[in-house]
């Protein structure tokens, strides 16, 4: 299909309509649905659900006089989520089409207030996600600071043992929920259509739904604190799960609600990539970041339903008194472990793959070289995604697996390091003999490679049964997964933000503050978590608020480093505020001289992304190749003058 034929060369300018001058109370949409109505509806939904739960079940023998009504709590929180979705407008269309009506028109709101509404614009949703995940990250980070404060001294305590366990559990759960969406949500939603030459997402309403459900999940999981918390850690193992109080409801329902958002986001992104690629964008021309999004979206779509089911079974145990996870009544606590980790290990790659995608996408830009072994990287990502379904039982090496099965899962776990290693080698191959431009995003990418090497190698050790059995449940494992998730994913997220925020906001992030942020984050991340390997090998267990006195020096060192690591995030927050509002510097159209399609459209991005659907002529990695073909034919629309050749004629 050749779209470029007979295209009009005069393209309507993609200029946003002028902002309304009418008073804010009279602006269209003011009386419509927004964050305020969602909050009110969520509160009403909670009260109604809680009342109904009490009305229905207050006389049940196991509830009467127990001082605890899990049915009321569950229905209250469910009502809160439904109220939230109704209040924001996410259910308008599903309800309208039930009675044969068209979707109600969206409020035509311009300016900042559109970010507080249910929007089907993927660029708005992407920025909503940026704020959402940062909020998630900061609250989870505050809990981390509380943990390190407690561990400053083995005998003088800030919190009691129960409170400490609750803080650790909340921190782990919040961070894991955040980490599954931290790249897919903000960057996946914003960038995938731009990178594949599409004007839209396949299912914009499902995309918007995924964000607002994500926020609802955030509220549900934090409702655990007023309910008294939960002490199971983020893995929620039974029988602790069964023994915990109403805070466990928030955990189980929170995971189920966030799971809904994850499934919706993954479903939409996968369908978009498969169907909305611009003409000429064959699978071998798809940007590597988009490959990582496809692999991640597939995992989100297929693995998350298992988590959803596991959460549902847990909720049934807590409410209608089933016994899925109660061994004494015919259930099994190992059932939870199996279901949880069948989701939980693919989740590790849900978190890792987008990080690899960002690193592989950015390396050619800052090395000015083509991506080394593109097809190996893409197949490595698909390989990781497939293999990730066959490794979950290594989490059960110590807790109930048939010993004869251990070698099999040890082998599959070691095998997954092969495609992961391919991706790593692709990065090294791209950097080989390159003249690297040490811009901020590249610094974060390099840090990712450093951190992930440590996290990855320790992971290979941990896949071996003898090592796993020895260090299980200690700080060694804790340090390993912080190196992979925080050292890999979070550094990749920062690289992505510094790289793409100029496109998303039209403002350059301040380089000097950014460098302070980077060095603080990189140095203190390593000073926080590397000592934990030693602490773990010396025998300190996780989730315990006291420890042997000879480990205090190392713990204090890690705690002080953690406080400084936390400070680095304040520097990042300051950089955001400074660069976007206090001293905004307009971003050039293509500040990194990237060949990526997302940089070839106008800035700010027009309402429909591309004035003409581009026809893709090659892959976006022909850096420093004299005579390389132009990336795409833009049909005289935005970006028509920007091509591989023109960019290479003016290399930075």
């Amino acid at each position, binding site marked *: *299909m050749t779209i470029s034929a007979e295209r009009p060369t005069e393209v309507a300018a993609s200029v946003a309509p002028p902002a309304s001058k009418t008073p804010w109370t009279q602006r269209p949409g003011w009386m419509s649905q927004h964050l305020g109505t969602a909050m009110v509806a969520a509160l009403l939904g909670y009260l109604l659900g809680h009342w109904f739960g009490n009305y229905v079940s207050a006389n049940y023998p196991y509830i009467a006089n127990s001082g605890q009504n899990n049915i009321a709590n569950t229905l209250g929180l469910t009502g809160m989520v439904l109220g939230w979705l109704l209040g924001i407008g996410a259910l308008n269309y599903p309800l309208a089409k039930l009675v044969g009506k068209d979707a109600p028109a969206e409020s035509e709101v311009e300016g900042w207030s559109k970010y507080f509404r249910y929007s089907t614009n993927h660029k708005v949703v992407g920025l909503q996600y940026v704020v959402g995940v940062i909020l998630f990250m900061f609250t989870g980070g505050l809990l981390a600071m509380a943990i390190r404060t407690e561990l400053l001294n083995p005998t003088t305590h800030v919190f009691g043992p129960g409170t400490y366990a609750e803080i650790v559990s909340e921190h782990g759960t919040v961070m894991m929920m955040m980490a599954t969406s931290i790249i897919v949500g903000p960057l996946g939603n914003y960038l995938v259509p731009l990178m594949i030459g599409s004007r839209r997402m396949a299912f914009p309403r499902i995309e918007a739904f995924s964000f607002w459900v994500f926020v609802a999940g955030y509220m549900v999981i934090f409702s655990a604190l007023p309910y008294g918390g939960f002490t199971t850690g983020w893995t929620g193992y039974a029988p602790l799960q069964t023994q915990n109080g109403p805070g466990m409801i928030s955990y189980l329902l929170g995971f189920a609600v966030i799971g809904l958002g994850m499934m919706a986001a993954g479903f939409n992104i996968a369908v978009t990539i498969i169907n909305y690629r611009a003409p000429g964008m064959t699978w071998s021309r798809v940007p590597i970041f988009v490959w990582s999004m496809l692999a991640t979206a597939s995992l989100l779509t297929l693995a998350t339903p298992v988590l959803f*089911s596991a959460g549902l079974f847990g909720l049934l145990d807590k409410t209608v008194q089933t016994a899925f996870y109660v061994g004494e009544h015919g259930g099994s606590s190992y059932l939870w472990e199996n279901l949880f980790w069948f989701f939980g290990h693919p989740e590790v790659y849900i978190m890792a793959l987008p990080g690899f995608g960002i690193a592989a996408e950015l390396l050619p830009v800052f090395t000015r070289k083509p991506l080394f072994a593109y097809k190996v990287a893409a197949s490595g990502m698909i390989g990781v995604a497939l293999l990730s379904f066959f490794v979950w039982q290594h989490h059960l090496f110590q807790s109930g697996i048939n010993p004869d099965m251990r070698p099999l899962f040890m082998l599959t776990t070691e095998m997954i390091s092969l495609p992961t290693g391919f991706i790593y080698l692709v990065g090294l191959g791209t950097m080989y003999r390159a003249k690297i431009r040490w811009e901020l995003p590249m610094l974060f990418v390099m840090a990712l490679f450093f951190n992930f090497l440590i996290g990855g190698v320790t992971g290979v050790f941990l896949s071996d049964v003898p090592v796993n059995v020895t260090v299980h449940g200690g700080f060694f494992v804790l340090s390993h997964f912080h190196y992979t998730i925080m050292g890999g994913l979070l550094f990749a997220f920062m690289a992505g933000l510094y790289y793409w925020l100029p496109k998303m906001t039209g403002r350059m992030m301040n380089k000097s503050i950014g460098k302070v942020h980077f060095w603080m984050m990189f140095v203190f991340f390593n000073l926080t978590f590397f000592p934990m390997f030693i602490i773990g090998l010396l025998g300190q267990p996780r989730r315990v608020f006291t420890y042997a006195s000879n480990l205090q020096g190392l713990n204090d060192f890690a705690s002080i480093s953690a406080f400084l690591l936390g400070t680095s995030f304040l520097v990042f927050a300051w950089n955001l505020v400074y660069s976007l509002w206090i001293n905004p510097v307009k971003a050039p159209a293509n500040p990194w001289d990237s060949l990526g399609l997302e940089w070839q459209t106008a800035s700010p991005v027009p309402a429909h992304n591309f004035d*003409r659907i581009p026809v893709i002529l090659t892959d976006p990695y022909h850096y420093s190749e004299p005579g390389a073909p132009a990336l795409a034919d833009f049909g005289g629309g935005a970006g028509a003058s920007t091509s591989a050749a023109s960019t290479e004629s003016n290399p930075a």
Partner: protein
Amino acid sequence: MTDIFKGSKVPNATPEEREFELRAHLGSIWTGGRLFIGMYTFMLASLAFAYFYLRSSNNAQLWRPNHVTAPTYYGFFIYGFMVLTAILAVYGQWRLRKGEVADWQVAGWTGVVSGLLALFLQIWEFTRVPFYPGSSGYASTFIGFAVMNIATIVVGTYWLETTLARGMRLRREYGPGAELSSHPAAQSFRANVSSMTYNWGFIALGATLFLVLFYLM
């Protein structure tokens, strides 16, 4: 799954771009329908895993004491109505392809009624189970299955009903016989009917599996 498709929303889209977006839209409905089956499969698989895991563990000899069984008559009726809905969806689509819109509508609305009956019976069965939810592994997994089945029937029947409602909207906007026209909205409608039917077929397959597990074994 989607609104009435009215083509590209870009004001100055060329005919080729409109064609491209229509193809992408139809492909999305096809892919989305199949991916939805994938999600549903993993959800059912987790329930089947729980069933076989607890059955083989037989902890405290409480997998299924005295071979308790959920009310079989209800189970067969629920299953029957679900399969009937699936058959009606398949039949309706077949007739629609033959140009018999009225047959599709009658089959579709009958399917909705059948789905609602299945839903009612599944909820009613809750009040008639002869065991306490936590009395055994079988009892627990059955309650889990019943909750999932309610959600399945609700989603499937909703999809069928909204597809029928969309057909009505099509006729209202584009005139009688709009479902069979070559208009993009009609193509989108037919793609949706196809995906919905395919999903109902899979729902019937899942229902058969769990009928065997919970009522016949």
